[in-house]
């Protein structure tokens, strides 16, 4: 089944699509609109990075924002990532709310010193007197056949750093609302945009951040809050835990598994720090089986953290050890090998099968 058909079918079944105020837009459009509104609502917000001014960013996320809000609010910097992030620290100290961009995930590495040693620690170092309300936008993950360093999965690296928060949206609706939410927080947030999803359209309810609450239960933590995970699809037999670009793939897998009578729940983690442990406990407490899916390499990846959180809350009820379907412990491969590296439908189905067929020894 093609992804487009799956997507369309899911949208048909989603009552939110029909609600007033709901518009179809791509994630690129949703992010662009969110930034536009953030600039309008908060005069202290400044957006800057490489090519984000006149060009509107290589992914056009900041398209038109400089023309509308001026060169003081949206500006191009020299090509230097450490400079961009170090500058963010000073701007935050001066009372601004910086929304810097690094053009591609792989170019966050040259800025790691400023992110880890400065942005993440300034609130602590200054005993809370110098908060860092910085939202760092990072076009993230693979799947677009980009050259080396233009596709990386850095979430474990960022999530490991005390002082940082990490979030990754999987839908245009969440991209819009999570970015607006992140930009109003007093702590630094790494906002990981799944670049392979930039051009996928979906319903965005700009008036209601939580349209999912009507179709799921009313529990505020169950997709009913922007601070936690979201149940992307309800199911009874097994939970797939994913984030960013992998959520859409897991939904595809769930559709295929349903044909075999396997009812898959897909939990979109959204926040990679803090991880919504209660949502994991609730979902896996119900299904009693789980597979974590991520693009990043296996070893010391976030899948291990998720598996441990599940083990802690669901040890006595788990039917099988938590499985991981991930990228491999290799540098992110070139475009032609990307499909071998990124968890594909078959590998995720095998993961499900391993869990379902697990027998205690």
């Amino acid at each position, binding site marked *: 089944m093609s992804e487009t058909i799956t997507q369309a079918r899911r949208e048909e079944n989603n009552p939110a699509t029909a609600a007033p105020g709901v518009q179809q837009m791509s994630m690129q459009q949703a992010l662009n609109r969110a930034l536009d509104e953030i600039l309008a609502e908060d005069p202290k917000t400044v957006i800057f990075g490489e090519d984000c001014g006149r060009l509107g960013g290589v992914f056009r996320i900041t398209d038109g924002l400089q023309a509308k809000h001026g060169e003081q609010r949206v500006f191009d*910097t020299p090509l230097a990532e450490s*400079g961009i992030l170090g*500058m963010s620290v000073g*701007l935050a*100290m*001066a009372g601004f709310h910086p929304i810097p961009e690094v053009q591609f995930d792989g170019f966050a590495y040259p800025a790691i010193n400023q992110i880890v040693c400065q942005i993440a620690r300034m609130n*602590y170092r200054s005993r809370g007197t*110098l908060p860092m309300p910085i939202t760092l936008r990072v076009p993230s993950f693979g799947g677009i056949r980009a050259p080396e360093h233009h596709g990386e999965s850095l979430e474990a690296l960022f999530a490991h750093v005390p002082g940082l928060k990490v979030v990754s949206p999987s839908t245009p609706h969440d991209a819009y609302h999570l970015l607006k939410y992140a930009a109003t927080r007093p702590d630094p947030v790494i906002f990981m945009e799944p670049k392979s999803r930039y051009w996928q359209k979906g319903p965005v309810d700009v008036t209601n951040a939580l349209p999912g609450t009507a179709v799921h239960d009313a529990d505020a933590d169950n997709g009913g809050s922007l601070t936690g995970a979201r149940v992307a699809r309800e199911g009874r037999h097994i939970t797939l835990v994913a984030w960013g670009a992998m959520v859409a793939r897991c939904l595809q897998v769930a559709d295929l598994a349903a044909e075999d009578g396997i009812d898959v729940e897909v939990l979109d983690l959204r926040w990679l720090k803090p*991880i919504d*442990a209660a949502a994991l406990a609730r979902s896996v407490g119900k299904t009693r089986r789980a597979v974590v899916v991520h693009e990043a390499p296996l070893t010391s990846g976030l899948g291990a953290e998720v598996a441990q959180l599940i083990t802690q809350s669901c040890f006595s009820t788990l039917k099988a050890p938590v499985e991981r379907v991930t990228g491999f412990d290799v540098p992110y491969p070139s475009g032609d090998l990307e499909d071998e590296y990124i968890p594909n439908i078959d590998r995720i189905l095998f993961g499900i099968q391993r869990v379902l067929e697990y027998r205690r020894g």
Partner: protein
Amino acid sequence: MTTNPVPAVVEDDAAPLTHPQLRELYNLMAAVRHLDTSAVAWQRQGIIPGYAPELGQEAAQVGSGYAVDRTRDFVFPTYREMGVARAMGLDMVGYMSTHKATWHGGMYNPLESRFAPIQAVVAGSVLHAVGWAHGQTLAGHAAGEMGVAMTYFGDGASSQGDVHEAMNFAAVMKSPVVFFIQNNGWAISVPTERQVAGGSVAARAAGYGIPSLQVDGNDVVAVYEATRSAFAHCRAGNGPVVIEAMTYRRGPHSTADDPGRYRTLEEERLDAGEDPLTRFRQRLLEEGVADEAFFAEAQRLAEEEEEAVRAGIADLGPRPGSEMFSLVFQEPTPALQSQATAWREESEHV
């Protein structure tokens, strides 16, 4: 050495320092010298675990710090700017708390003091100064009213990429930043000639189109005047300035360092030049600005102050462990909160 002002720096028509100001500068230098040498002694006595002395850099630090207007400027220090902190009137117990290992970054208020937290990553805060200064530009102050960021770093830190990114950013954006380099001759054990290519740090500024000057860093008045004119240049909206104060680190890099492994006492004696305090004292005597009674009183005040700071840090005591958890975020994560709870429960049992 003479100061070579750069033509692009605006004409500084400020009045020369008055006699009371000159005496105040001496008092500051005497206080800094005594506190600095005492801090080394405190480390030897086990009062503090470590310290980065600045013996010989009093003129560079006091002269530059004295030019800061605390109502609008902001200073971005490293870990060796005690003299700047003192000249700016910081709470010195709060400052020394870092060396007491009480809290990273110090326990003074950076917003009130206009002195950013103490920073151990060399060149780490040079870019912060540029960002803060760009904020001054964005705030749209009238020419002459703008706050200026002054960032301190050394000859060793000038090798860091962040310094080059910062100079380029500041020049492109015409940010009001004074890059204040204390070239003290040594990056721990590596001498400047093995550290700085291109002759000097000031010389590099030309590549960014930034006006620069080298100043005799052992002459407190020359340093003050150079800094004051750089501030005037920045405040008027002309963009950044680079000042390289040529001085000498007379002591070790830190109390854990042994300079005897990389230089001899004879080399120290020859290379260090004239002691900045002795030199300033001589000048004040010759010009009739101060007499022996004044210097004796300056020393007495310095000793009194040092005793008060020593008593203050002795009283600091350890911080409550809960701060370790509560000051990471403005909005703590649930995981961190539960770690704090577990820590509290478990530490109450021991």
